[in-house]
C-alpha cells in the first residue's frame, strides 16, 4: 500500500485557516469560497426582496430552522473526516425522540423534572445507536455505509414498533416553550439556536484544536499509519460514531421540543441533507479534510435558497435543483483540487479528470 494520494495544498483544516495569512490564501480554502457563494446568494435575494428578505425576523427563522441540522452536522463532519458516513442520524433522531416521548408520557407532568429525564433518555438512546454503529464499524470491520444503512432501518423500524406507527404528541410544555419556541432571555435569538451554536463552538474546538480532533484527521488520512504510530484507531472510530449518535439524540429532543410530535414519518431526507451540507462545506468524502465552519456554511446554503425561493415565489422544485447543482459543483471543485495537487499544480494536459471519486491508490 503505497501512499500516493492526492492532497490539496490548502486542505482546509482550521489550523490551516489560521495560518493562512494573506487574503489570497484565505480565498483558496473551500469553506471560505462557499461562504462567498452564500454571500452572493444572500445579496441576490436581498436585491429581489429588499423589504422582506434581509430582515432580522427572516434571518432569525432561517437560523432557527437550521439549528437541528446543525447539531447533526457536527457529528457528521467528524464521521466524514474519518472517511466514514452515518446514514442513521435521521432514524436515530426519531427513535430517541420516540423513546423519550414514551418515557415522558409515562411519567406524566409537564415540568422540568419530566423534561430532564426525557433529555437524558433521548441522549442515552442516541449514544446507544452510535455505540452499535461504532463497534460494528471499528471491531467487526463492516463498512460504515452498510452498518449505518442497517441501523437506519433498525432504529426507524423499532420506533414504529414502539408506537404502532402513531405519533406521540404529548410533549412537556416546558420543552416546547423554552427550547422549542423560546428565545434566549432578553434577546430574539431562539434558544434552540443558542444550544446549537454552543455545541458547534465546543466541538469545533475539539476537532480543530485538540488531540482528539487531530486523531480524527489522522484516522481519515491514513488509518493504517495512524495505527502504526500508536493511535488507538478502533477506540477513536467508536468514539466518533458515539459522538454522532449522541448528537442525534440531542437533535431528537430538540425536534420533539420544536414540533411537539415524534414525527415518525418525518426526517426521511435528514441524513442526506446533512451529508450534502458537510460536503458542500468542503469536507472530503475521502477523509482527512474538513471543517465544522464549512459544514455550518454548507447548511445555510440550502436553507437560504429555500427561504429566498419561497419569498420571491419560485416553484418549490427549483430549490432542489439549485441545491443539487451547488453540491455537484462543490464536489467537482474538490476533485479538481485533488487532481491538481496530484499533478503538482503542473499542466492540465493529460485530460484524465477524476470526477467519479476514484482513489488514486
Amino acid at each position: 500500500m503505497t501512499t500516493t494520494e492526492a492532497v490539496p495544498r490548502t486542505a482546509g483544516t482550521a489550523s490551516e485557516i489560521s495560518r493562512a495569512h494573506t487574503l489570497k490564501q484565505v480565498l483558496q480554502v473551500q469553506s471560505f469560497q462557499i461562504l462567498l457563494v452564500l454571500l452572493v446568494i444572500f445579496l441576490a435575494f436581498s436585491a429581489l426582496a429588499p423589504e422582506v428578505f434581509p430582515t432580522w425576523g427572516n434571518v432569525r427563522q432561517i437560523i432557527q430552522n437550521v439549528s437541528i441540522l446543525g447539531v447533526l452536522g457536527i457529528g457528521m463532519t467528524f464521521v466524514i473526516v474519518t472517511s466514514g458516513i452515518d446514514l442513521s442520524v435521521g432514524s436515530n433522531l426519531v427513535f430517541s425522540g420516540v423513546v423519550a416521548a414514551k418515557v415522558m408520557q409515562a411519567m406524566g407532568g409537564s415540568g422540568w423534572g419530566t423534561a430532564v429525564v426525557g433529555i437524558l433518555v433521548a441522549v442515552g438512546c442516541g449514544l446507544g445507536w452510535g455505540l452499535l454503529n461504532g463497534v460494528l464499524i471499528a471491531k467487526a470491520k463492516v463498512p460504515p455505509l452498510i452498518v449505518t444503512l442497517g441501523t437506519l432501518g433498525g432504529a426507524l423500524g423499532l420506533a414504529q414498533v414502539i408506537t404502532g406507527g402513531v405519533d406521540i404528541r404529548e410533549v412537556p410544555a416546558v420543552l416546547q416553550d423554552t427550547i422549542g419556541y423560546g428565545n434566549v432571555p432578553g434577546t430574539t435569538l431562539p434558544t434552540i439556536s443558542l444550544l446549537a451554536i454552543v455545541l458547534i463552538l465546543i466541538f469545533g474546538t475539539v476537532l480543530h484544536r485538540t488531540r482528539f480532533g487531530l486523531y480524527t484527521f489522522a484516522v481519515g488520512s491514513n488509518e493504517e499509519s495512524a495505527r502504526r504510530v500508536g493511535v488507538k484507531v478502533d477506540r477513536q472510530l467508536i468514539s466518533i460514531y458515539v459522538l454522532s449518535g449522541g448528537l442525534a439524540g440531542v437533535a431528537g429532543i430538540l425536534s420533539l421540543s420544536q414540533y411537539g410530535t415524534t414525527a415518525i414519518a418525518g426526517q426521511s431526507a435528514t441524513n442526506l441533507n446533512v451529508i450534502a451540507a458537510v460536503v458542500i462545506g468542503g469536507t472530503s468524502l475521502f477523509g482527512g479534510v474538513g471543517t465544522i465552519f464549512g459544514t455550518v456554511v454548507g447548511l445555510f446554503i440550502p436553507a437560504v435558497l429555500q427561504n429566498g425561493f419561497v419569498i420571491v415565489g419560485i416553484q418549490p422544485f427549483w430549490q432542489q435543483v439549485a441545491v443539487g447543482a451547488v453540491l455537484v459543483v462543490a464536489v467537482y471543485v474538490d476533485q479538481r483540487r485533488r487532481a491538481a495537487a496530484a499533478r503538482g499544480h503542473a499542466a492540465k494536459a493529460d485530460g484524465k479528470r477524476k470526477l467519479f471519486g476514484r482513489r488514486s491508490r
Partner: protein
Amino acid sequence: MKLTPKVTLLAAGVLAATSLTACAGGTASAGSGGATQPKLTFIQGVAGDEFYVSMQCGIDAAAKAAGATVNTQGPAKFDPTLQKPIVDSVVASQPDAILIAPTDVAAMQAPLKAAAAAGIKVVLVDTTVEDPSFAASAIASDNKGGGLEAFKAIKNLSPSGGKVLVISTDPGVSTADARVAGFEDGAKADSSFEYLGVQYSHNDPAEAAKLVSAALAKDPDIVGVFAANTFAAEGTATGIRQAGKQDQVKIVGFDAGPAQVKQLKDGVVQALIAQEPASIGTQGVDQAIKAINGESTQKEIQTGFKQITAENISGDGAQYVYKSSC
C-alpha cells in the same frame, strides 16, 4: 479560459443568483403593480400530488376571479419537518392570507398560530391542527359523509343487499376512521345489508388479500367491500379473484388519483369515491378574501363527494378525477 476551482465555484454562485433573478421576474407574485391586489400563498401537504394540484387549480381559478395573486409552495414529502421551514419563510414574505394543508396536527400548530399572530389570515384546507381557533376557516371533506357515499355506491352496485366489509389501512388515522364510521352508519341503517366490520391491512396488499380470503371463507356471500385506499383495493381484488367471486363481490375505492382511476378502468374496483379538492380550494379562497376584507367567515366548511363509476368516468364523472396539472 483556465477554470481554476475558485473561478468555477464563484461562477456557479453568480449563475445561480442571476438565473434566480430571471425566474423571479416571470412569476405573478413578483408583480407589485396593485397594492390593493390581495396576496395569497397556498402551502400544499406535498408538492406535485394530484390531490393538491387539483386543489391548486381551484385556488388559482378562484383567485383570478377575485383579482388576487397566489404563490404555491410545498414540501417534497408529506413531512412536518420539511413543511415548517416553508411556512416560516412564507410568513416572512407577509402575504395577506395563507391557505395550508398542515402535515401534522401538533407540529404545525405553533408556526401557524405565529402566522395568525403576525396578522396573516390562515385558512386550513383538507387537514387541520390540534386547536384551529386561530384560523379564519377550516375546510375539509366530510369524511363521514364519504363513508356513507361509499356505502351508497355499493348499494347502487348490489341493490338487493347482502353482507359488506371494510378493509382500512391502520387504526388511529382520523380521516380513515371517520370514513369507516360513516360506512358503518349507512350499512346498519339499511336492513337489507349486514355489516361485517372493519379489518386493517396496514397498507400491505398481501395482508388485504389474506383478510379478504379469510372473510370469504367465513362468509361466502359477501356482496361488497369498501377498500379505504389503493393498496387495500389492490389486495382486496386479489383475494376476491383467488376465491373466483369477481362477479359477486363489488369493490368501492377511495380518492380519484391516477392510480385509483386506473384501478377503476382495469375493473379492479367498480366505483370510486372522489373528494372535491378543487371545491375545497375555491371555498378556501372565498373565505380568505372575506377574512382579508374584514367580513365574517365560516369557521368550518365540509365539502362533498362524487361517485365515479365505469359509466360516468368519461361523462360527468371526469371532472372529479384529480388533475396532474390545471
